[in-house]
Structures are given as structure tokens and as C-alpha cells.
């Protein structure tokens, strides 16, 4: 048993494959946070006064807030004055108008990440809005989307081109002072993505954003806003990676989804931020607030996440089920290896009648990884006939890791039905031996078993990303092959 496990563990000590630094001159603000810094960000982005006021309001409240410590995480103190809050590639002065004008080094970076914009976007029919550090560098398929009436652009562009939409929906799902990290983001967010799907439109392609933190000591604070008008549909995928660095980098994003009557939003995340080295040095602190609002009847929001990276993950993509018959779903795979810690889960807030939610969470812990599922199912007084099903499975690989489950259930309506199932299993020496005995190598066996464990979640991902997620999981679990 012990020998089998140590063998598995040896193979798990994989190397982070996206750990390269792109050598581009960055135009950064000096480290530090105060009202001047916020004003400087706002000026650089040529923002209207209301947005600057909005930022400053969040900042002033943030100063009075305290870092939350209720999660099952060990976090070294963060020095917010040591972080630079804005960084963009120098070439911003004459921002590229098309992909051809984009710095080849940037494109190379995306290639290394496996996102060849030219090829991939065209072949796969994916529109990619790539965020490099804080500024969007290229958006493909904008024209095609335009024909359908879909707006898909960087957040900064949206502020310039569609200020009325931004103003209407910004902060309407995650109030700017919702929590400590959301307030920080609201004060200093630099860029992100904006999606607007008009009434009755089915977005003709998957929308995708790749985030990557490059410059040292820069926090990345993106802001994503997706609005689906009545009867519309959109599927959005974000992928994230960051280069290897010794120090911890902070990533505090906010994502807001608004689904109106009969609208559906699928939001998928494949997150592979740098997790730190085998000793737990470095890595991204991923403190993210994601929330979807099924604002009107029959709306549907589905979160799917595959989390393999970050030193620390703190995120709870949630659904507020306000409209009658609205549906919220959360499918999650979270993997922690070495010294990674994850405290992740969801909140399903049932307010409308006959609202339904489904939670499928798969936690995988290896090395000394700690994996916690934390989920809240709340059924309000008016949520007649609300239903929830939660399934929460943990898999342990080796003997030094941990899995924890913290389900919170609050029901104020007697007609509600809430189900919770949880299992914990150890990747069996039995399962491994069974595969070996049929001739399958240990490495293939481990990835096969883990893949099977995650199947319920993977099948929620768009096809090409399911393949990518599977590959990512294999990379995160594999050793230096052999």
C-alpha cells in the first residue's frame, strides 16, 4: 500500500509547464495603493467620472473591511502596498488594430499556452479575447459576432463604447463592497471582458478568454460582466495561466452574470495559475468572486470549473435564483497537489418559486494538498417547491493530503427538497493494481481513474475544452514521465 502510494506521489511531482516569462517592456504603476493610484488607473483608461467615483467608493469601504479568515486556508499576510496595481505592455500607445499588428512575442506566449489565436480561433470557431496582464490585446471574430448583435469586447472598450450598459449592470450582481476582495477589485480593476447578448439571440460561437499574469508583483484584477437578454443563450470559457515566480501573486477577480427571462448562460473555467513549487514557494493567490443572477423567470446559469492551479484558491461561483423556475448549476473539479490549498464550492440562493439547483463537486487531493468544499444552499421563504441536489466527492492520492466538506443548508420554506450526498475515497491500490494487471501502465491508470472520477463535470464542458481540461489534469498529475 505505502509503496504503491509513494510511487504514485513520485509521479505526481510534475513540473509547471507554463512557467516562462515574456520579455516585454511593461508600463507599470509603482507599487502601492491609495486614491491617487486609483485615479491614475481611471485616467489611463479614460474613464467617465461616475466610474472613478464608483471605484473610490469601493476603496473607501475596503479600507474599513477586514481580510476574511473563515476559510480552511493558511494564508501568509498580504502586503497590499507592495503590489503594483496596473501593468500593460508598452506598445499600448499604438494599440494593435488587428492580430497582425500584435507583438509576435505575445502571440508566441499564447502559442506556448496552447492558444494559437490564428489557427485555433479559426479552426475551432472560438472567439478569443486574450488578456495579457491588464490590457486586452486582440479580439477575434468580433465582426462575426457583430452581425449577430453580440457585443464581446474588453471591459475598457465597453466602458468607452457601451457606457449605458456597463453602468446599468456593473455591480448589480456583486455589489462593489460585497466582500473584502470584491471591494478591492472594484477599486482597482484594470480590465476584463464584457459580453452582451441581445434578446432572442443564440450566440453563434463559444466565447473564450485567456488570462495570464506576466509582470512580477502585479496583481491582476479583472472584471467580467456577461448580460444575457430575454431568450438568449451564451457559452463562455475562461482559461488562466501564470508564469513561475517565487513570490506570491494576487489575483482577485470579479465575475458577474445576468440572465434575464428565459436566458441561459454557461460559464466554464479552466484555471491553471502557477501553483507554487514542490515546497510550496510562490504561486498565485486566487481570490475570486463569481456570481450569477437568474434575475427573471426560467433563467438558467451553469458554472463549470476545472481548477488545477494556484497556491491558494478561494472561490464560490454562485447563483441567485430570483426568477420563478430558474435553474442554477455548479460543476467543479478542483485538484490540489504539493502544498496547494483550495477552499471552493458554491452558493445557491433560492428565492423564486420552483427554482432548482444542482451541485456536482469533485475534489482531488495529492501530495500535501488540502481541498475543501464549502457550499451553501439557501431556500428563502417565498421559494415554494425549490429543489436542490448536491453531490460532493473527494479523492485522496497518497497519505499526506486532506479533503474537507463544509455544507451549509438553510431552508425557510417547508416545501423545499434538499439532498446532499458526499463520498471520500482513496485512489485505490486496488484500482491501480487492477489496471496494471490488465497491462495498463501506472501513469495511464492514474489518469484513467482520475478522469473517470471527473467525468460528470467534464461532460459539461464544451468538447474542445473538455479535451484540454483532461490534458491539464494529466499534466498536473504526471511526474517527469517515467
Amino acid at each position, binding site marked *: 500500500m505505502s509503496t504503491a502510494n509513494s510511487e504514485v506521489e513520485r509521479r505526481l511531482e510534475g513540473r509547471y509547464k507554463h512557467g516562462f516569462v515574456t520579455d516585454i517592456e511593461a508600463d507599470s504603476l509603482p507599487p502601492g495603493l491609495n486614491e491617487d493610484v486609483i485615479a491614475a488607473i481611471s485616467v489611463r483608461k479614460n474613464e467617465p467620472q461616475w466610474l472613478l467615483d464608483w471605484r473610490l467608493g469601493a476603496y473607501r469601504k475596503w479600507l474599513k473591511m477586514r481580510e476574511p479568515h473563515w476559510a480552511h486556508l493558511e494564508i501568509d499576510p498580504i502586503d497590499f502596498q507592495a503590489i503594483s496595481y496596473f501593468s500593460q505592455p508598452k506598445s499600448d500607445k499604438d494599440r494593435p488594430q488587428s492580430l497582425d499588428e500584435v507583438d509576435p512575442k505575445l502571440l508566441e506566449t499564447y502559442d506556448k499556452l496552447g492558444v494559437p489565436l490564428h489557427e485555433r480561433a479559426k479552426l475551432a470557431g472560438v472567439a478569443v479575447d486574450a488578456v495579457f496582464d491588464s490590457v486586452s490585446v486582440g479580439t477575434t471574430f468580433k465582426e462575426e459576432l457583430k452581425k449577430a448583435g453580440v457585443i464581446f469586447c474588453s471591459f475598457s472598450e465597453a466602458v468607452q463604447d457601451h457606457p449605458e450598459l456597463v453602468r446599468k449592470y456593473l455591480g448589480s450582481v456583486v455589489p462593489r463592497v460585497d466582500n473584502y476582495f470584491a471591494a478591492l477589485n472594484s477599486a482597482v480593476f484594470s480590465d476584463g471582458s464584457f459580453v452582451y447578448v441581445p434578446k432572442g439571440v443564440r450566440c453563434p460561437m463559444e466565447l473564450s478568454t485567456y488570462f495570464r499574469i506576466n509582470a512580477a508583483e502585479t496583481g491582476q484584477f479583472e472584471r467580467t460582466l456577461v448580460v444575457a437578454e430575454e431568450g438568449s443563450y451564451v457559452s463562455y470559457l475562461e482559461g488562466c495561466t501564470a508564469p513561475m515566480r517565487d513570490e506570491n501573486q494576487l489575483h482577485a477577480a470579479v465575475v458577474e452574470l445576468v440572465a434575464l427571462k428565459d436566458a441561459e448562460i454557461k460559464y466554464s473555467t479552466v484555471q491553471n495559475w502557477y501553483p507554487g513549487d514542490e515546497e510550496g514557494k510562490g504561486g498565485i493567490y486566487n481570490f475570486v468572486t463569481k456570481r450569477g443572477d437568474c434575475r427573471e423567470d426560467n433563467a438558467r446559469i451553469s458554472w463549470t470549473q476545472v481548477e488545477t492551479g494556484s497556491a491558494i484558491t478561494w472561490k464560490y461561483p454562485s447563483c441567485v435564483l430570483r426568477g420563478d423556475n430558474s435553474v442554477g448549476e455548479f460543476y467543479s473539479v478542483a485538484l490540489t497537489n504539493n502544498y496547494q490549498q483550495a477552499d471552493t464550492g458554491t452558493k445557491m440562493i433560492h428565492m423564486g418559486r420552483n427554482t432548482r439547483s444542482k451541485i456536482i463537486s469533485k475534489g482531488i487531493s495529492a501530495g500535501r494538498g488540502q481541498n475543501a468544499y464549502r457550499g451553501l444552499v439557501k431556500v428563502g421563504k417565498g421559494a415554494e417547491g425549490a429543489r436542490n441536489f448536491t453531490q460532493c466527492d473527494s479523492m485522496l492520492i497518497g497519505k499526506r493530503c486532506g479533503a474537507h466538506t463544509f455544507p451549509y443548508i438553510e431552508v425557510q420554506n417547508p416545501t423545499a427538497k434538499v439532498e446532499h450526498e458526499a463520498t471520500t475515497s482513496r485512489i485505490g491500490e486496488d484500482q491501480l493494481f487492477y489496471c496494471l*494487471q490488465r497491462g495498463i501502465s501506472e501513469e495511464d491508470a492514474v489518469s484513467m481513474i482520475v478522469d*473517470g472520477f471527473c467525468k460528470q463535470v467534464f461532460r459539461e464542458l464544451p468538447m474542445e475544452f473538455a479535451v484540454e481540461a483532461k490534458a491539464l489534469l494529466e499534466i498536473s498529475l504526471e511526474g517527469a514521465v517515467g
Partner: protein
Amino acid sequence: MLSIKALQASVDGKSILKGLDLEVGAGEVHAIMGPNGSGKSTLGNVLAGREGYEVTGGSVTYQGKDLLELEPEERACEGLFLAFQYPVEIPGVNNTYFLRAALNAQRKHRGEPELDSVAFLKLVREKLKVLDISDDLLHRAVNEGFSGGEKKRNEIFQMAVLEPQLAILDETDSGLDIDALKAVAEGVNRLRSPDRSIVLVTHYQRLLDYIEPDKVHVLAGGRIAASGGPGLAKRLEEEGYQWLEDGGIGSVDGEADKATATA
């Protein structure tokens, strides 16, 4: 095919096999019987190379190779198959996918081209027909939610697809009702062939009513205590194992009905 000499093995520091000798020729079917705790399952696990089963002495030669030198997956690729007493569930992994991965790993090892899914499916359907197994089995996850009988049939099905040279069936009859037992036995009989050796490890004689072995061995105290023909199994059924343990350890290569334990 298989030659085991003075094999000693221990589990968690406890000595289980204490000098076991066994010769299995090509195409032969051998039954190994014995009371609980005699080391029957240990033998299967040692031969398959399971972690935690430590060989402390003796040798095992399989098709001219030192079996104990090979990794478990190499042994499988060399044609050694263990039908598990408790087949393992692998949730979410499709049975067909699993089996194709196994077959292709073995084919690759032998330097043969891998089968694509169309060719594989054709092969699988032929085998299902021969074994009279419903193809519902193909669409489910490996052993997940299978009944005891289905799990054992699935083992035989895997064996049929992988076509091993040496199959060790570890208590394949345990926990089966009579219909399932007959079906499994029928499956095994169809796989008998001049170039395939089969070792049946069983506690009860009843399996041998349906699969007639060439030789029967009794394992007691970590050694082969007696050997004989099918008649030996019948005697065990009538008299139990006590006479062997009382009579000490020995080996008799007698004719079918005359097997006795030496005093």
C-alpha cells in the same frame, strides 16, 4: 508454461507461502484447493506481482522467463491474466474503453498495431456472442454497480478479449448462484485451448463439476499438501480438509482416485 519452485512469500512480515512447488504445462487446467487462510489467494497475487506480497525465496519461471523480475504490467503484457476474486470498480471509466486500453497496451508490447475503435468493437461483439453476455456490459463503467455474477462474467469476458497464455482464476466461483456459476464455467470451458493454461483457485469442489481439471492440488500450510486427479477434489468435498492437516504435509502424484496425503 509455469514452473514454481520452493516459493516462499510473506504479507506484512507474516510468512504465508512456505516452499510451494507447482508445474503447469501448456494447455493444462489445474485446480488449487485448500482451506481458508492456506495461501490460495496469496499465490495468485504473488504471481501477478501485487504490491505488498513479498517473495522471500524460491523461483517462478514463466515461458522461460524469470517471472519475479517483471513488473505487474509486464507480466500482464506477457500473457498472464488474473481473474480477481473481488473485481474492482472504477467509476466513470467505460468498460469498453478500459478493455481497449488494456488490449492495446498488450498489443503494443508485442509489437502489434493498436486496434481502432471500429476493429475493437467488432472483436468485442464476437466475444460477447461466444460467451452469451449482453452488450449492456459494454456501456457501463468498469464493474460499477455490477452484481456479483456480472462482475465475475466481466472478468471472463476480459479474459476472452485479452486471450492470455496463463489465466489464474481466483475464487471465480465464490458468491455465485448456480446459474451464474454454470455460465462462468461455460465461459471458461470455451476458452480452454491447447496453448492456454488455466489455474483455478477455489475453495469448493462444485466449480469442478463444470470445469474438469487435468490436475488437482491441495494447498495447506503454505505448501502443496497433495496432488492428484479430479477424484482428489471429490474426496475433499466428502471429507473436508482436516485429514490433510492432521496428516501433515506431503505430495502425491497419484492417479485420479487414489490420491492420499503422506503421513
